[in-house]
Every structure is written in structure tokens, then in C-alpha cells.
């Protein structure tokens, strides 16, 4: 164990971990894993310069380091604060942090439409998860919400600014993955919005990745033929030989029967893509013969998508039942109530193999 590099010892919610110098508190927490990992709506490990904006990942540094044990005076953004040797951090053990986080979630939802039932992102939305975990029962905001019209950015991507939380991830993606950035933030303050250069189509072979990085339903895939219904699809890992050298060719296919409804990159349990994929793989390869299927995808998220009991699902233990005092999660929807297509009595998990449209047509 005689390591060359000295590791820093950090304690997060009383759990110790050793990490390399330069690691952020958030990544140290992810190394521990589980309930003590702060939620991150804007940080994205694969995007340089991301983080610091949404403030959901605020934590309390109760001891700065062994050398300087003073606590930090304010809560800090764990995604942008690096650890020091001997640092002690409180996340879910700090009432102050939970209170502040509740405030941040309220701010994020202030102008948010709260219409998950008709939102394309429902079921795989980080904001939905977050409000489930930290949101209040009802809004205290009595004013008109800010709304925007949906705009098409090209024929494959749709932007619905009303749902955007201004995490800047898509801007970093456009800047760092594509040759010519045509996508940025316009306006200031409350009026800030994601915009493209005179609504130009974003025609770059990697721009589709903005859909995957968007934590909410602001940027969505127009070629997805089964909107609002991800929980009826079965995700499978697949790959193909892609000729674009920057594309890994490894994807998740969202299928029903033999039909491919959507192609996305593979995401880890924090919702970050493992490797970027190109737009050809994402938008143009919708035939089963295009792909070599590896097997069912393991989804480790807590939102409704994992309610379907897919094969091999790791369902994280839900610590929030205690915290929420049995209160009903606000944004979670009962899919059976809103589905017009599918029969409420069909329980996906009971179907052998991939679900097929026939399963739903049966009277």
C-alpha cells in the first residue's frame, strides 16, 4: 500500500474516504456512493467548466482541513470545491444543508411548468427526481410563470425553454464537442434563455448529445416516436461499428418488440453519458439490423423509469421515506392515469421478454 501519491482523507457525513488531491467534494462523495451523494443538476464530469450554477449540490464544510480546521463560513458548491486533507463535510446530516437545498429546489421549480404528465422527459428527469426528494408540497409562487414557445432547432431537436433550468450543460457540449458553436445563452437574469444563432438548425454530427446532457425536458429528440412513454420501453445495450472516429458506437436502444423507438448514449447512475455518440447513430439507425444487441440495460435511477422492475435493476434504497414523513411525492405521476394508449391492467414486469405492441392490443 506504499503509494507514491499522498491521498487526502475526507469525511462526508461521517463516512471516511481517501481521494487524490484535486478531487472535488462531489466526486469524493460519489466515491463513497449511496445517500450521501449531493444531487447535481448542472455539474457534468465530462464537460469542462460545468458546475457551480444550480446550487443543488451545496454542502457544509464543518472542518476545512487538518492544517486549518476552521469551518467554511458559507455552504459551498460541492461540485466546484476541492477537498483538503482532513476535511469534514456534512451533507444529509446537516439540517442547514437540507434547508438550503429545499430552497434551491423551490427556486428551480418557481417558473417550472410542473406538467410532467405531458412532458417528454417524464420518467427520466433529474428535476422530477429532485423535487420528489426535496420539494415542498405546493408552490408559494403566486405570479404568472415565465413561458416560451417550443422551437425546433433543426428537424431532429426541439427546445422547450419553459422547462430549462439554465444549467449551461448544452452550451458547454456545443462548445466542446462541435466545431462551430451556434448555441448559447441569450438575455440576462430571469430573462436568460438558451438560444441559437437565428434559430439555425444545429447541424453538427455531435450536437445530438445536448439531448442527453439536458437534465430536464428542455432539449428533446424529435425523432423519438413514442414520446411520454419511456417507461413502456425496454432499454437494451447495443453497439455498432461507427465510422466517426469520435463516436464510441455504444448506445442504449429503447425498444418495444423489435422496434427501436429511440437511441441514446449509455448513462451512468448519475445520469451522465459514459461516452459520446454521433448523430448518425442517434437519429438515423433505427433498425434492429443496424445494431448488435448486448442485453438488457441496467438502470440505476430512482425516478419512475425504474418502477417497471426491469431485469437486473438495482433499486437504490430510498432514504427519503423517513425524511418525507410519508408525504406523497409531488411530481411523480401515476402513468396509468394519464396513459391513453396503454391498458392500466397490463403490468410490464409480468410480461416475459420484451413487451410488444400486441401485449397492449389485447382486450
Amino acid at each position, binding site marked *: 500500500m506504499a503509494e507514491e501519491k499522498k491521498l487526502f482523507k475526507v469525511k462526508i457525513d461521517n463516512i471516511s474516504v481517501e481521494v487524490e488531491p484535486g478531487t472535488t467534494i462531489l466526486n469524493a462523495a460519489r466515491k463513497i456512493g449511496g445517500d450521501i451523494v449531493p444531487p447535481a443538476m448542472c455539474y457534468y464530469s465530462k464537460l469542462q467548466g460545468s458546475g457551480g450554477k444550480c446550487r443543488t449540490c451545496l454542502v457544509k464544510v464543518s472542518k476545512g482541513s487538518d492544517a486549518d480546521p476552521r469551518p467554511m463560513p458559507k455552504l459551498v458548491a460541492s461540485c466546484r470545491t476541492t477537498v483538503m486533507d482532513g476535511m469534514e463535510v456534512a451533507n444529509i446530516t446537516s439540517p442547514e444543508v437540507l434547508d438550503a437545498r429545499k430552497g*434551491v429546489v423551490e427556486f428551480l421549480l418557481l417558473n417550472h411548468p410542473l406538467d410532467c404528465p405531458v412532458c417528454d422527459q417524464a420518467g427520466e428527469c433529474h428535476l422530477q427526481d429532485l423535487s420528489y426528494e426535496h420539494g415542498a408540497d405546493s408552490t*408559494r409562487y403566486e405570479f404568472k410563470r415565465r413561458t416560451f414557445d417550443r422551437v425546433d432547432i433543426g428537424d431532429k431537436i426541439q427546445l422547450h425553454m419553459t422547462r430549462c433550468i*439554465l444549467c*449551461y450543460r448544452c452550451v458547454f457540449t456545443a462548445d466542446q464537442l462541435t466545431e462551430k458553436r451556434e448555441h448559447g*445563452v441569450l438575455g440576462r437574469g430571469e430573462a*436568460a434563455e438558451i438560444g441559437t444563432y437565428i434559430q439555425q438548425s444545429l447541424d453538427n454530427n455531435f450536437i445530438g448529445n445536448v439531448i442527453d446532457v439536458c437534465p430536464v425536458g428542455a432539449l428533446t429528440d424529435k425523432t423519438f416516436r413514442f414520446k411520454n412513454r419511456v417507461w413502456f420501453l425496454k432499454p437494451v445495450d447495443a453497439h455498432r461499428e461507427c465510422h466517426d472516429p469520435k463516436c464510441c458506437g455504444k448506445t442504449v436502444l429503447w425498444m418495444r418488440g423489435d422496434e427501436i423507438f429511440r437511441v441514446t448514449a449509455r448513462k451512468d447512475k448519475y445520469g451522465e453519458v459514459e461516452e459520446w455518440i454521433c448523430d448518425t447513430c442517434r437519429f438515423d439507425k433505427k433498425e434492429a439490423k443496424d445494431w448488435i444487441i448486448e442485453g438488457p440495460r441496467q438502470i440505476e435511477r430512482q425516478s419512475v423509469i425504474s418502477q417497471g422492475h426491469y431485469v437486473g435493476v438495482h433499486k437504490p434504497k430510498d432514504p427519503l421515506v423517513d425524511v418525507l414523513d410519508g408525504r406523497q411525492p409531488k411530481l411523480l405521476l401515476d402513468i396509468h392515469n394519464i396513459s391513453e394508449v396503454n391498458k392500466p391492467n397490463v403490468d410490464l414486469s409480468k410480461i416475459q421478454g420484451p413487451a410488444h405492441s400486441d401485449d397492449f392490443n389485447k382486450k
Partner: protein
Amino acid sequence: MGRKLLFDKAHIEGIRYYDVYRANGGYGSAEKALKSMSPEQVLDEVKKSGLRGRGGAGFPTGMKWSFIAKPEGVPRYLVCNADESEPGTFKDRYLMEFIPHLLIEGLLISSYTLGCNSCYIYIRGEYAWIPDILEEAIADAKKNGWLGKNIQGTGFDLEIYVQRGAGAYICGEETALIESLEGKRGNPRIKPPFPAVKGLWDCPTVVNNVETLATVVPILRIGGEEYAKYGTGKSTGTKLISACGNINKPGVYEIEMNISVEEFIYSDEYCGGIPNGKRLKACIPGGSSVPILPANLLLKTAKGEPRMMTYESLSDGGFATGTMLGSGGFIVLDEDQCIVKNTLTFARFYHHESCGQCSPCREGTGWMKRVLLNIENGKGKMSDIDLLWDIQRKIEGNTICPLGDAAAWPVAAAIRHFRDEFEWHVLHPEEATKRNYGLAHYADPLEIAAPAAV
């Protein structure tokens, strides 16, 4: 008459121009620094002077300068913060308009100390006529060998450029200023890294306020130790105060930091009292973001001592019963003024100026503004007052840059000290649109708690 260090020659006709400035001892400090002192010696004088940043935060300037990283072969930059946009503050404008060479001399000495060869003055865009004044002064200084290559034969080179902003208060925050100077949106950066390590174009950078940099000139003239004898305790030297609101003589005053608030408001040398025989209701002594105080707490601290115009005395009692010196934007409210209305204009200001990067400030400032507008328009509810308190509490300390705090504090202080006025607005919506709550009890003498027996 209080002693003056910056405005001692301000009354001289033509001091705006090089010849007059020079004939009255101008550039003497620069000559002394460049020709007879090492940068370390100058830094030492600034440290000894106890000078604290005049931009609002009051951070010791000497210490700030000693933090600048000095990697080999990487240029360093000095940026002069002339964005001056905090409501109530208009002192830097006066310096630049009327004594531009004082600032240029200060920039020269400071650049020499820090080892910078390029310096940028970032001035708010609305001060559209001042860049011409500064550029003319820069050209004259250059003609006379105080800028350019090999200044006065010392081998030191310096260019000063003036950059105009375009209407954004947030660009006064030093990292937003740097972003703006790089031709970007004025989004504050997430720190660390600090500008002293990675600032303008990723090079080590120091950002200082106009007044701070101009003050280096008298410090070098009289010496750091002598400068530290002005003022009181850790509030050394003199400070420019821009006084406005309901006073007889609004304007920019140089005060030595040893006079009382009462003297500042009522003496003929400074504000000259309140017009029309009205009485003092409240005051915001350091620019719109510092807490507002009712008359009784303003003139005397909670301990019953006279409140002085110093960093320490103004913040005596913390936010519970004190405020801050801030940037020296001194706003006086007389008995006819409405606290709710005043708070609303500040909330509107911060909402307008939020850059929109982080959620508490982007969403919270607009929310506070709307709730305040309802109260002001007679549509408020009692619960709105607690709601406002809760919103400001959730913004404060949770944002990327201090604009969030700056937006939260005025609302918090107004509710803390003037809650009954808010309640009156809610309970008497009709009447509140026609008349103001008035002075009420805000000037009543405070009960001084007897000092606890030890």
C-alpha cells in the same frame, strides 16, 4: 475643516489638466516610487498605511497585492474597477472627471509595484463622456514621459487603456468584470481560482477600485505610517462619501474617518442637514446593498455610543443593529419617505441586474420584487412579509457571487427594522397608496441595555 488627502487640490482651477496637476506637485509620488524605491518598498508603504479597498468589501490592499502570483514569463495585469453602479455611489466618477491625473498616477505606482505593463480601466458604459477625459489625460501623461516605454528613464514600461462597459451592474464584481473585459457576458466566475492566480486571459490579475488606486498617491507622498495616523483604528485615512437622498447638499465629500454620522449629516461642511425642516427617518450609509438603519440606530449604536463614519463603528452590532460602510454611497431618507417603496426600488434594481447564472438569485430576486410590488400596491397579505423574509434568507449565502447577498440584505434589514410599516401597508391598503407611514417611532431614543455585570 477635516483634513484632505485626495481632494486637497481639487479646488484648484484647471487641476484636470496635466500642466496644472504637475505644477501642484502632481506625479511627485510616482517620481519618488519609480526612481528611489523598489516595488517591495512601495508595497511595504501600502501595507503600513492600512489602506482598505474602497470598492465595498474593505479588504486590505497591501495584502491583496502580496497575493498576486508571479510565474516566470507570464504577464500580470492591473485592472481598475470604474464600473461604479451601486445605487447611491458616485464618487469614482468625480475623481475621474475632475482629477484624472490622480488616478493615472495611482495606476502608474500600483502597476510598478505589481510588475504590470498593461493596465485597463473598466468604466461603466453610461459614463460615456468620461473615457474621453481619461484618454486625453493618458495622452498628456504619455507625452510627458509618464506612460509608454522607459518611463522617466527608469526602464519601466506601462500602457493604460480605457474599456467601456455597456450597462451591467454585475460587471463591478471583479470576475464578471474580467469576463466582460474578455468580450463575454458578465457572468461572475466560480472561485477558486482567484484572479490573483488566474484572472484576465488566465494571467495573474489585481482588480482595485478607482479610489483605492488613487489613494496610493497620497500614501507615497506622506508615507504609509503617516497615512495610518489619519482616521480611527483600522479605518485609516480618508474616505470619499457620495451623499444623496434627502439632504441639503448632496455631493461627494472626502472625510477623515474620525467624524460621527451625526456630524456628517448635519454639519454645514458636509450634507448640511435635511431640507424643509424635515426629520431624519432612516439611512443607508454604504450603498444600496448595505442594511438600512432607522434614525435612532444610525446615530447611536445599540450600546449608546455615537456612531462614527468608520468601517468598525458602522458595523457595530452586526446586522442586528448595525450596517456597513460599503462603498460609501450614503443615502438619507426623511420622514416623508416610504420604506416599502424604497425597498421595492432596490429589489427591482437587483432583479434587473442579476446575471441569471445561479438559481437562487435568478429566480429569487424577481420573486421578491413581485411580492414587494403587491405590498406597495395595496395587494399584500400579512404572510407576504414572512415569505419575503424566507426568500431573502434562502438567497443569502447560497449564490455564486455576492450580488445575491446584496439583493437579500436590503430586504432583510427593511423588514427587521420597519416591520410595522410593512404591516401597516398590508392592513391599510387604501390609505397606503395615498400617504406614507411617516416617521413613526423610528427616531425615538433607544433603551440602552445596562452592561451586564461581569
